[in-house]
C-alpha cells in the first residue's frame, strides 16, 4: 500500500463517524446519510491528491456528501416514471433521532445548517469554515449566530426571539 493509500485509509477510519454525524444532522436520515457519506469518501479516494491539500478534508467530504444527496434526488426525480425497481425513499425521520431537533435543523437555510454541522460535528473554527466555504469569517459568525437563534427559538419557543436592529 502506497503512502497516499495509507494516508487515505487513516483519514477514512478517523473521519467516517464525524462526517456521518454531520450529514445526518442535515439529512435527518441515517440510511441516506450513510450512502451519501460512502459516496463522498469514494470521490475523496478518487481525488485524494487534491482533497489532502484541502484546508479541511472532512468538510470537503461533508459538502460532497450533501451535494451527492441533491444530485441523487434530482436524478431520481427525472427517472421516477421508469424507476419501478428503485430503492426505498428515505424516511423522514429515522428511529432514535430527535424529531424536534431535526425539524428545527430543517427550518434552517442550507448554508446555516452546513455551518452548524461543520462547527458542531467537525469542530472546525470560524476561520477554517470560512476558508472552506469561501466566505469571510464574519459571514460565518453571522450564519452561526442566526442559526443558533433560530434553533433556540425552535427548541425553546418561550425564549425571547432577538430582533435585528
Amino acid at each position, binding site marked *: 500500500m502506497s503512502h497516499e493509500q495509507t494516508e487515505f485509509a487513516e483519514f477514512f477510519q478517523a473521519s467516517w463517524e464525524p462526517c456521518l454525524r454531520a450529514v445526518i444532522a442535515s439529512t435527518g436520515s441515517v440510511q441516506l446519510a450513510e450512502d451519501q457519506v460512502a459516496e463522498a469518501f469514494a470521490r475523496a479516494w478518487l481525488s485524494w491528491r487534491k482533497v489532502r491539500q484541502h484546508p479541511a478534508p472532512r468538510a470537503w467530504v461533508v459538502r460532497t456528501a450533501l451535494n451527492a444527496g441533491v444530485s441523487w434526488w434530482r436524478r431520481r426525480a427525472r427517472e421516477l416514471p421508469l424507476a419501478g*425497481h*428503485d430503492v426505498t425513499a428515505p424516511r423522514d425521520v429515522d428511529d432514535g433521532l430527535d424529531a424536534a431537533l431535526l425539524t428545527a435543523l430543517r427550518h434552517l437555510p442550507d448554508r446555516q445548517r452546513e455551518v452548524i454541522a461543520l462547527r458542531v460535528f467537525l469542530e472546525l473554527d470560524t476561520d477554517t469554515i470560512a476558508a472552506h466555504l469561501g466566505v469571510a469569517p464574519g459571514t460565518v459568525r453571522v450564519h452561526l449566530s442566526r442559526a443558533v437563534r433560530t434553533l433556540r427559538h425552535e427548541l425553546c419557543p418561550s425564549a425571547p426571539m432577538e430582533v435585528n436592529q
Partner: protein
Amino acid sequence: MNDNDELSDGAMLRDSAVLSAVRESISGLPMPAAPRLEAITARGRARQRRRVGGLSIASVAGAGACAALVVGLAGGWSSPAGLAPKAAPRHDASPIQLAAFSVVAGPHGTTTLTLYPGQVAKPSAVRQALAKHGIPALVTAGEFCRTADQPAPGVGDVVVLPQQPPRPVGGTGPVRTGAVRTGAVRTGAPGPVRTGGPGPIVIYGSRIPSGVKLSIGYRQNSQDREISFSLIKAGEPLTCTSIPDNGPHPGD
C-alpha cells in the same frame, strides 16, 4: 448548569448550550459501522468507469455508429452494451451472442444485477463483475451453496428482489417471492431468498460485512431465471445442493 442552560419554559439557552444540544442529540445515536475501505475504493473505481464509459458511449453515438443495446428479453430492461459482456452486434451469418447478464452501478450506492433469460451466465464472469463493484460473491450455476451459519445481516438487507418482500418459510428457511409489485423491498429475512421473476436485482454491497460473501446460485436451464441468494462466511465449509431444472431444490 445555570439558568441560561435550562430548556424549561422561559429560560434562554446560551449559544454553547444550543450547540451542545445539537451535538448530544446526534452523538447519542448508534452509528452504523464504517464500511470496509475496499468497498469505498471499489465504489470509486466504479464511478470512474461510469464516467469513462459515459464518455465513450457519447462519442460513439456522436459518430453515428450503430449503438448496441443489451435487451432484457422478458423484462424489457436494457443497458449500455459497454457495461455488459458479450454484446456485440454482428452483421454476418453467425448467431448473435446476446448478453447473459449485466452488472451496473445503481442509485444510492447500489449495484444492479440482471440475468437475462435464454443465456446462461458464466459464474466466474458474474463473480468478477460483482467484485469490480466491491461485492464479494460466490456464484454457482446448477447448484446453490451455503455455510452452516448464516452471518448477519439478513440477506434481505443486502439483496432487494424485483418482487414482493421475501416471505419467510419456517423461520430461517428459504423464502420465495410473491406476485410482482414494483417499488421498494427491503427486509431482514435471515435465510436465503429466491427470485423467479423478471427484473433486475438490487444489491447493497456496502452492507456485506468483512469476512462475508454473497452466495448466488442459479439454474443451468437458460429458460429458467430462478436465482437464490444467501450470505455465507468466507472460508467456512460449504454445503452445496443441486438446483433441479424445476421445483425447489432439496432442503427447501
